């Protein structure tokens, strides 16, 4: 069973989002996603300053098996990207909800965050996917 922290929001496409105290949203891929992809060998994250819209493919994670797009949960401006992934993409496998974060976005509309899946809904989506 994969770990689905209760305090995060999710997309069906297996991204997680965390609303930070400063109003930005941190984005990564879920524990389920990193398990399904296998050993990650490369992550391409957007440049700080790039505008993204909710649902837009804005990062790529590449494992020994596949390369997958990562979709933005919110619309806004990328304010930071995880530079550590350049040398250590395996951080996504080791700590998907922590050191393996991908990017931080300043959302245009904070209210949009609450429309994302909560942990329960994401778990239900995972269950539906496996059956």
């Amino acid at each position: 069973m994969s770990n689905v922290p209760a305090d995060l929001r999710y997309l069906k496409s297996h991204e997680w989002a965390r609303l930070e105290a400063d109003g930005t949203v941190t984005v990564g891929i879920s524990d389920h996603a990193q398990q399904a992809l296998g050993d990650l060998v490369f992550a391409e994250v957007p440049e700080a300053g790039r505008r993204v819209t909710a649902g837009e493919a804005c990062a790529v994670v590449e494992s020994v098996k596949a390369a997958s797009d990562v979709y933005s949960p919110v619309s806004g401006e990328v304010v930071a990207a995880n530079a550590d992934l350049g040398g250590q993409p395996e951080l996504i496998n080791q700590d998907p909800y922590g050191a393996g974060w991908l990017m931080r976005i300043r959302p245009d509309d904070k209210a949009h965050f609450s429309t994302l899946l909560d942990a329960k809904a994401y778990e239900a989506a995972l269950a539906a996917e496996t059956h």
Partner: protein
Amino acid sequence: MPFIPHTADDIRDMLAAIGAPGIDALFDEIPANLRSRALDGIPPAASEMEIGRLMTERAARDGRRLNFIGAGAYEHHVPAAVWAIVTRGEFYSAYTPYQAEASQGTLQLLYEYQSMMASLTGMEASNASLYDGATALAEACLMAVRAHRKSKSARVLLPAALNPTYRDVVHAVAGNQNLAFELLPYDAKGGHTTVASLEKYRGQDITALVIQQPNFFGTLEDVDALTDWAHAAGMLVIAVVNPVSLATLKPPGQWGTKGVDIVCGEGQPLGVPLSSGGPYFGFMTTRMEHIRQMPGRIVGRTVDLDGKPGFTLTLQAREQHIRRSKATSNICTNQGLLVTAATIYMSLVGARGLAQVAATSMERTAQLVAALTRIPGVRLAFDRPRFHEALLLLDRPVRGVLQALADRGIVGGFDASADYPSLDNGLLVCATETRTLEDIEAYAQALGEIMTSAAAA
């Protein structure tokens, strides 16, 4: 001999299994008006014997001419051992087998090829080749746009002194993929691209600068200054090079203070005979930081479960069988047979041999230029140092002169007047190590007679 493994019985069984009445039924969803009909004007199939005879007769009509044309493809001596080895059954396949468990020989050869090209160009990584030099440049421009994420313009600067065929192909391949190309003029005196011509782009968002060394005129560019200027202005630099020239010129990995970002070019001079424009092969090398944006296949060295060294395709997540429409490129193969020839050619002539080929070609061209420019009505277009090619200017239209030379069995050069109308009567000439001093003397004598006869004027 049937090349399709399915027998008539197999096909019938498969159709029966899916309940289709015939193969045509599988294409039902294509509207009738979109279907191709039988080809008109194509004669019926000929036997190997008939084709062999026809081709021998046509080749005899070409005769054996003395060749002084280069313009992107060059006549070099190819040691007999090269194609004797290439045509061995183990290598001689129209298709490149990549299956690691069955193709270690082919994969090792491609790995050796990549190592040689990386070393020759002074870069860190090479792909397993592309179709030809012109498409390699088009791919390099697309790659630069992907690799240079800070640049949003997708504008690429092309020198007017770039091979005009490459320019056409780059426009055809990349022009419809939202790339914009701007032409840099060449210096009227030197025939090279000047840093001064770049100044108007200072402060603008330009993705990449293309530098061809030697350029189409055979002239050597000031590659260090151009590379440094472009890097300082935030552009990537793409080098288009003749691989033979790298045996004597500085490799692009060492141009300027940082070296270029992408190197590409035509591999034909390395062991591939002239053949009506192809098949040849393109090469591409880059730095490790851009390797995921490089098109084509890449062979890597690894170890198997028992720890024994072996070779396999690597970094395939860039490629279209995995990334589908988001693949780095839709180029997913290489020119396996020609790369095999190039690898064997390089291994046979070695670094010293390649340097001799380059030096002798330079010397022969210098001798050719000296002999031809002694003729009244023939002068050198540009005064800069050159490799093994030079642009001459004639006092009359080139076409008639080339025809008169052809009548004497001499292919006198490339008529540059259509591509460069502002250069009066430009004739691009080349002499490689395969031309002797007697050949050069024969050309000079013939041209001298033609230029002094009023009829050719």
